[in-house]
């Protein structure tokens, strides 16, 4: 039975800030960047009004924001930051260090197009640039999910089998600046769900099991020089942790569902069971796409969709299970990998079907770069294309660009 919840009018950034307030982490180190700024602004108000115990470190750059989070998390703190686009790009070096130090930092990414040319509007080029950094990446469909995912993220990151940092991604403006009804849990329920941070142990130099933190009583060395004789093994540990993450994400999503009535998984299908054609994608566009699916269903078209919530780890089995019997799949990418064969999501989805005996036809649609709108009409064009492919049995052009001139 779900607990009693309070409906609040929040935009995506406020929903994130409110969730962080309820979690009340030890350290928040952040720097303003559109469209993430509201998160730091709201959180600063909570700090100014004494509503949290957090040390808010208003750093001089995103690079220092994440660097400070690394120091804080290594010292045993819960540490949070938030950024977007160029800010995430500036953090790039430290992303890899945070994950390889196995620090359970949580970061909100308010997705925005990377410069240049400079642009403040949403696409996924920022998060896609960080996909190989060893962070878990959760993409949200709406502000409710952003709120819910920020709360779950701590449990995922700090899980002893995982111990990896988590990015919660929400589309800039479309979610970050758009007011939504958000169901919020009471503070004590959030606190109980998140609990206290627990520490894994490691062997120190004297063979003693000690917590993996910077504690003067039990000194350990974090971030040493690691050459060809051990580096690879340490990368294997990160690979193993990422391999264990899907089960944890599902478990935490289910446990959260029992509490809130909103269950989350690795992928979220919509009217997919009997669908013949389906689109696959990330983020807020998949919310719009549900309306299009409904319209098509009214016309008797067997359309559906699969939203990928966890991009890292990439839920291979769940995607295959959900899509293997479809005739045609359209993969939506809101990012471009210059010179590659299609967008990043497309490449991975096509790849995992290679080993399947029966494969759907898979077509790629790159859309929405720099915040180019994706209204239902444009999604309808994609579904019409999928219908055409289903009828003819062939894809004329594998990679298409939607809503662009020329």
């Amino acid at each position: 039975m779900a607990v009693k919840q309070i409906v609040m009018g929040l935009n995506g950034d406020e929903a994130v800030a409110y969730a962080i307030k309820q979690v009340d982490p030890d350290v928040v180190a952040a720097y303003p960047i559109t469209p993430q700024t509201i998160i730091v602004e709201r959180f600063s108000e909570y700090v100014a009004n004494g509503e949290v115990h957090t040390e808010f470190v208003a750093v001089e750059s995103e690079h220092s924001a994440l660097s400070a989070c690394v120091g804080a998390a290594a010292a045993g703190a819960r540490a949070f930051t938030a950024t977007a686009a160029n800010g995430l790009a500036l953090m790039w070096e430290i992303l890899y260090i945070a994950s390889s130090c196995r620090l359970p930092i949580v970061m909100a990414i308010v997705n925005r197009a990377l410069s240049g040319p400079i642009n403040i509007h949403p696409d996924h080029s920022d998060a896609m640039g960080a996909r190989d950094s060893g962070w878990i990446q959760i993409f949200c469909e709406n502000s409710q999910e952003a709120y819910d995912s920020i709360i779950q993220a701590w449990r995922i990151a700090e899980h002893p089998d995982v111990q990896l940092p988590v990015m919660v991604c929400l589309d800039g403006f479309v979610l970050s600046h758009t007011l939504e009804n958000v169901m919020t849990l009471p503070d004590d329920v959030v606190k109980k769900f998140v609990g206290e941070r627990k520490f894994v142990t490691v062997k120190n130099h004297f063979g003693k099991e000690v917590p993996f933190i910077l504690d003067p009583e039990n000194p350990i060395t974090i971030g040493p020089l690691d050459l060809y004789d051990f580096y690879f093994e340490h990368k294997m540990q990160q690979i193993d942790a990422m391999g264990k993450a899907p089960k944890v994400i599902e478990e935490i999503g289910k446990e959260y569902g029992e509490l809130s009535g909103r269950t989350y998984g690795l992928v979220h299908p919509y009217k997919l069971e009997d669908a013949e054609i389906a689109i696959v994608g990330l983020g807020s566009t998949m919310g719009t796409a549900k309306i299009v699916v409904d319209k098509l269903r009214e016309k008797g078209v067997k359309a559906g969709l699969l939203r990928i919530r966890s991009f890292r780890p990439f839920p291979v089995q769940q995607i295959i299970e959900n899509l293997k019997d479809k005739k045609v799949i359209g993969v939506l990418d809101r990012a471009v990998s210059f010179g590659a064969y299609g967008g990043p999501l497309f490449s991975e989805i096509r790849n995992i079907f290679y080993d399947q005996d029966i494969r759907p036809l898979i077509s790629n649609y790159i859309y929405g770069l720099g915040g180019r709108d994706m209204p239902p009409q444009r999604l309808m064009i994609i579904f019409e294309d999928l219908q055409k492919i289903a009828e003819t049995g062939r894809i004329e052009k594998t990679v298409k660009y939607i809503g662009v001139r020329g």
Partner: protein
Amino acid sequence: MSEKITIKDLAQKPDLLMPGHRLCAGCAAGTIVRLVLKATRGPTIITNATGCLEVATTIFPYSSWKVPWIHNAFENAAATASGIEAAFNAMKRTGKGPLAKYEHVDVIAFAGDGGTYDIGFQALSGAFERGHDFLYILYDNEAYMNTGIQRSGGTPRCAWTTTSPAGSVIPGKREWKKPIARIAAEHEIPYVATASPAYPIDLVRKVRKGLEVEGPAFIHVLSPCTRGWRYPPEKTIKIAKLAVETCFFPLWEAEFKDGEIVYTLSAPSERIARKPELKKPVEEYLKLQGRFSHLFRPKKREDLINEIQQWVDREWKLILKRCGKL
């Protein structure tokens, strides 16, 4: 109490940087770190920027550090220290978390000249401005020694490095050394000092003072480098001493008190201020170092040596003025 530290005290305090590290024979950084750690007063956490010290003391699975230690990256030692300090403050406030049990935790950042003058300057300045309670130790070997002797903002004029070679047209580095300690002092942080491994008691006393003040402290320690400065390993302390005796690297402290930056000369430089005839010509310092050998061979470059002497005199005068000695 910081005034009372003696050599005996230092000898009795166990080392916190253990032997077996791979710093070069004659490297001053190891000596400096051992001295710094002798000055610690209780629970301490170290963060170390990328560089010789980090690389040579922590080759996995070995570590020379008997204190909790973290290396994050090259340019962010001050930001990492900010995070550690913030974590301690938060835990102290709630009484929860692994550091809450300590009355106080000293946070020390070690970084070289590259990680301080150049790539780490932004993070350092930001951390000063925010006022975190930490001590930043710059061990300045005056070039990117870890990558093989490239010039930095800390490299002195005319020094040969692999990116400021002494050519037939350009005689080594063309720019002067950036006055990093004075820049740090201008941040109006509680404590700034320069120090030298040739004056261990002075160094240790300054470290203790840096730890005792509330807020950021910055100590600039000159760290002669046998490989990069091109001199035999046994001459490290002699060269460090000459840097002070020639006033190439004067020793001083700057405290921010009652809205003023108050500079004070430290004993070794104070002696020279009192007796100017003790000030040795900079040539004595330069001629021991292979990185300046092009100033002496094949032909002595009086013009360049004079230029450096003039710079030393000007900087010394400036420090004397700041210290109220002129």
